[in-house]
C-alpha cells in the first residue's frame, strides 16, 4: 500500500513538467518583462531593431569576421505568401515569431524551424492594400502583439497563438492601415497608422497590454488652438497626414518614445500654407500619458513626399567634442540628422548631406531649418525635377549602429531624382480614395536620373562616424538598394536589398564583403540574430515586393529593360558549418 502511494505521488510530481515539454519540445515560455526589454539577453532578439535604442545590433560574436565565410543554411521555411516580406524573426528563448503579407503571424522553433502555430487574421475582400506587408510583432508579458493591414491590433498567447483580444485602431474603409511592428513598454502597446496618401490624420495610440483598453491617442497634426495648430490653414489638419508607419525607439531613462512622422497631406503645398507640424518630424511622447514632450521638424512644409518615418537611433556619444545623448536619423530628405534628446526637447546638433540633394540651399546652423530652392519645389506652375527622388536618400529600411566599431550604417539610394508634373489646383478629400493631388500617371512615372545617362551606381551602404561627421567607408551597388541592416559584435554587417537576390555580410569596420549567398527572392526583410543551445544563427526573410518593386519598375522604365525578381516568401536561417 505504502509503496503504491509513493509511486503515485512521484508520478504526480513529475507529470506537469513532462506535459510542458511534450507540448512543443521547447521550455516553457519566459514572459517578456520591462527589465528584459531594457536589457535584452544577447541570445535573444526581442525587439524590431534588437533593442529599444533602435540599433539593429546583436552582441553575439560566434559568427564573426574570421569565420563568416563558413555560414550555411541551417533551415528554411516557405511562408506561402508573395509580396514584400519585411518582418524580422523575433526570438525569445527559442520561440521565434515572424509576420508575412496576408496578415499571418507564424510561431516556429528557432532551432529546428518546426511550426508551432499560425494565426491569420480574416481580412475583408473589399480591402485594398497599398502596402501589402507587415513589419513584425512586439513581445510583452506572455503575449505576442501584431498590427494588421485592416487597422487592428491583435494580442495572441505567445505559446499557443490563441487570440486574447483584438481592437480596432483605425478605419480601414478610410484607408487607414497598419504595417509597423508595435512598440511595447511599461504595460503599453503602441502603434501608429499609415495613410499619408489617403488623408489620414496621423497618430500614435497606446493600448493596455493586458486588457487592450485604449490608454491614449496623440494626433500628429494639431487643431487650431493646440500647440502648433497655427501651422495649418483652416481644417486641413483633419486630413493632414503625418502618418506613423515605422516602430518608434524608446529611452527608458526619460520614458520617452521617439516616433518619425510621414509627409503632410495632400502633396501640393499651396493647399496647406504653414510649416505643417508635426509632419516630417521626430516627436517625443511620454509613454505613460502620450503627451508630446519635444519635437524636431526635419524639414518644414514638405513638397517632395519625404516621409521621415524612420525612428532615430538613440546613441550616447560625443559630437563636436561634447558628450551628447543623440538621436540620429538618415533622412529621406537626403541629410543625416544628428539631434540631441533631453527630458523635454529635441535639439539640432548637426546635419550632413549623404546623397545627391539639390533642394536645400542652406541649413540654419542653430535650428537646423533648411531653406529651399523654389526651382526645385513642386507646385502648380509646371513640372519640377528634384533630387533625391520621392523615395529619398533612404526610405523606411532601417539604419544600424555598432557600439564596437562606433559606426552608423545607412542603406541609401544615391543619384536618383524625381520629376512631378504640375499639381492639381484642387484636391477634394473623398473617404476611401487617394488624397495626393498630382496626376497619378505622373507620380507613377516620376523617377529620373540626374543627367541624361544612367548613373554607374545607385544603392550604397555608407558607414559614418557620428562624432567626427565623416564617412568611414561606402559600398556601392549598380542597382538600387532596399536592404534593412543588422550589425553584430562579431564585426559584421548583414544586408540583402538588391534585385540580384543576394544576402551579404561585410566586415563592419572596413566594408569588405566577406560572404554572400543567393536567396530564393530579393531580400527586403529585417535581419536578426539569436542563439539557441550555444549556437548562433542569422535569420532573414526573402520575399520581394512593395516599394522595392515599385522602384524597380521606375528603374526599368528609365533603362528600357525589365528585371524579373521572383516572388515568394521564404524565411532562411543560417549557421556556421562545422
Amino acid at each position, binding site marked *: 500500500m505504502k509503496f503504491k502511494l509513493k509511486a503515485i505521488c512521484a508520478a504526480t510530481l513529475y507529470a506537469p513538467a513532462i506535459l510542458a515539454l511534450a507540448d512543443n519540445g521547447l521550455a516553457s515560455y519566459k514572459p517578456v518583462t520591462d527589465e528584459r526589454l531594457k536589457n535584452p539577453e544577447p541570445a535573444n532578439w526581442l525587439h524590431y531593431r534588437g533593442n529599444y535604442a533602435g540599433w539593429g545590433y546583436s552582441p553575439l560574436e560566434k559568427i564573426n569576421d574570421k569565420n563568416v565565410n563558413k555560414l550555411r543554411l541551417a533551415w528554411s521555411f516557405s511562408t506561402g505568401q508573395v*509580396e514584400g516580406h519585411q518582418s524580422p524573426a523575433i526570438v525569445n528563448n527559442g520561440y521565434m515569431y515572424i509576420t508575412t503579407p496576408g496578415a499571418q503571424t507564424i510561431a516556429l522553433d528557432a532551432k529546428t524551424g518546426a*511550426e508551432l502555430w499560425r494565426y491569420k487574421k480574416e*481580412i475583408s475582400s473589399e480591402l485594398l492594400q497599398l502596402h501589402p506587408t507587415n513589419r513584425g510583432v512586439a513581445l510583452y508579458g506572455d503575449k505576442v502583439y501584431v498590427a494588421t493591414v485592416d487597422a487592428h491590433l491583435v494580442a495572441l498567447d505567445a505559446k499557443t497563438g490563441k487570440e486574447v483580444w483584438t481592437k480596432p485602431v483605425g478605419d480601414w474603409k478610410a484607408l487607414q492601415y497598419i504595417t509597423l511592428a508595435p512598440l511595447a513598454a511599461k504595460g503599453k502597446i503602441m502603434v501608429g497608422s499609415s495613410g499619408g496618401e489617403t488623408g489620414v490624420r496621423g497618430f500614435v495610440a497606446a493600448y493596455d497590454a493586458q486588457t487592450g483598453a485604449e490608454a491614449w491617442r496623440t494626433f500628429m497634426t494639431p487643431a487650431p488652438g493646440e500647440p502648433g495648430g497655427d501651422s495649418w490653414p483652416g481644417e486641413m489638419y483633419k486630413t493632414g497626414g503625418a502618418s506613423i508607419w515605422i516602430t518608434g525607439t524608446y529611452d527608458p531613462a526619460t520614458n520617452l518614445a521617439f516616433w518619425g512622422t510621414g509627409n503632410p497631406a495632400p502633396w501640393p503645398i499651396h493647399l496647406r500654407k504653414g510649416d505643417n507640424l508635426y509632419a516630417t518630424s521626430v516627436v517625443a511622447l511620454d509613454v505613460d500619458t502620450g503627451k508630446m514632450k519635444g519635437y524636431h521638424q526635419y524639414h518644414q512644409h514638405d513638397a517632395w513626399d519625404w516621409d521621415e518615418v524612420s525612428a532615430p537611433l538613440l546613441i550616447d556619444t560625443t559630437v563636436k567634442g561634447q558628450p551628447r545623448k543623440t538621436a540620429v536619423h538618415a533622412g529621406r530628405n537626403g541629410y543625416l540628422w544628428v539631434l540631441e534628446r533631453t527630458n523635454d526637447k529635441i535639439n539640432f546638433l548637426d546635419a550632413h548631406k549623404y546623397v545627391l540633394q539639390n533642394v536645400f540651399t542652406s541649413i540654419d546652423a542653430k535650428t537646423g531649418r533648411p531653406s529651399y530652392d523654389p526651382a526645385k519645389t513642386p507646385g502648380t506652375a509646371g513640372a519640377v525635377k528634384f533630387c533625391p527622388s520621392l523615395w529619398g536618400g533612404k526610405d523606411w529600411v532601417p539604419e544600424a549602429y555598432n557600439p564596437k566599431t562606433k559606426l552608423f550604417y545607412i542603406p541609401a539610394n544615391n543619384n536618383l531624382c524625381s520629376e512631378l508634373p504640375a499639381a492639381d489646383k484642387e484636391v477634394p478629400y473623398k473617404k476611401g480614395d487617394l488624397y495626393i493631388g498630382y496626376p497619378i500617371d505622373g507620380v507613377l512615372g516620376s523617377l529620373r536620373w540626374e543627367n541624361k545617362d544612367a548613373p554607374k551606381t545607385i544603392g550604397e551602404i555608407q558607414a559614418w562616424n557620428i562624432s567626427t561627421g565623416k564617412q568611414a567607408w561606402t559600398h556601392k551597388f549598380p542597382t538600387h538598394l532596399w536592404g534593412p541592416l543588422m550589425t553584430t559584435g562579431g564585426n559584421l554587417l548583414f544586408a540583402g536589398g538588391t534585385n540580384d537576390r543576394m544576402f551579404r555580410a561585410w566586415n563592419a569596420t572596413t566594408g569588405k564583403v566577406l560572404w554572400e549567398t543567393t536567396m530564393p527572392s530579393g531580400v527586403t526583410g529585417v535581419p536578426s540574430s539569436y542563439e539557441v543551445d550555444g549556437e548562433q544563427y542569422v535569420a532573414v526573410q526573402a520575399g520581394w515586393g512593395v516599394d522595392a518593386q515599385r522602384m524597380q519598375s521606375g528603374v526599368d522604365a528609365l533603362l528600357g529593360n525589365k528585371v524579373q525578381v521572383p516572388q515568394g516568401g521564404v524565411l532562411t536561417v543560417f549557421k556556421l558549418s562545422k
Partner: protein
Amino acid sequence: MNDCDCKNAPTDPTPRRRVIRLAAAGVAIGLGGIGSAPARAAPTKDDRLVADDVQGEPVALRPADLTPGKPLLAFAFDPKTKEVRNTSRLHKLVLVKFAESELDAETKQRAAGGVLAYSAICTHQACEVKTWVAKEKALVCFCHASKFLMLEKAKVADGPASRALPSLPLALKEAQLVVAGTFSAKPGPG
C-alpha cells in the same frame, strides 16, 4: 496576398480570427459567399449604369456621357427599383469609350456604342484601376502600377497583377447602356 471571396466561405459576416496549427490550412475567408449580400449586389442582366458618386435617384448612363480617353467609374442599378448595387466596392465598374472601328470582333460583341465595361478593382491588391495611359490605351493601377490593355481584354501588360480585369458585357436599350450578362471572372484579387 489578399483574401479570396471563396465559395465555401461561412455566411457569418463577422470577421473572426482563425488559429491554425497545421501549415496547410491557411485559406483566408472573406465576407462574401453564395447567397450573401455582396453576391446579390452584383451587376445583373438589364441593369442600367450610373456614375459611382451618384447622389439621389440614379439616371442611366448613355454612350454620349462618356469621352474617349476619360474612364468613368460606375455602378449598376436596378431599373425598376432604382437600387444602386454599390454595397460592395468589388462590384465597381470602370467604363472606357473607343471608336467602334478600334474594337476587334470579340470586343465589339460586349461593347455598346463603343463603351466597354470592366471591373474597376485591381486583381492584384484590390485598388481602383482608373488612370488612363493614352499612349498604350491602357488603364494603370495607382497602387503598384499594374497595367491593363483595354483593347486586348484588359490583359496584364506590366506590373504584379496576374489576372486580366474581368469584363462585363453591355448592350444598348433605348440609347441607354444596359448590362447584358455577368462578369467574365470573379472581380478582385485571387
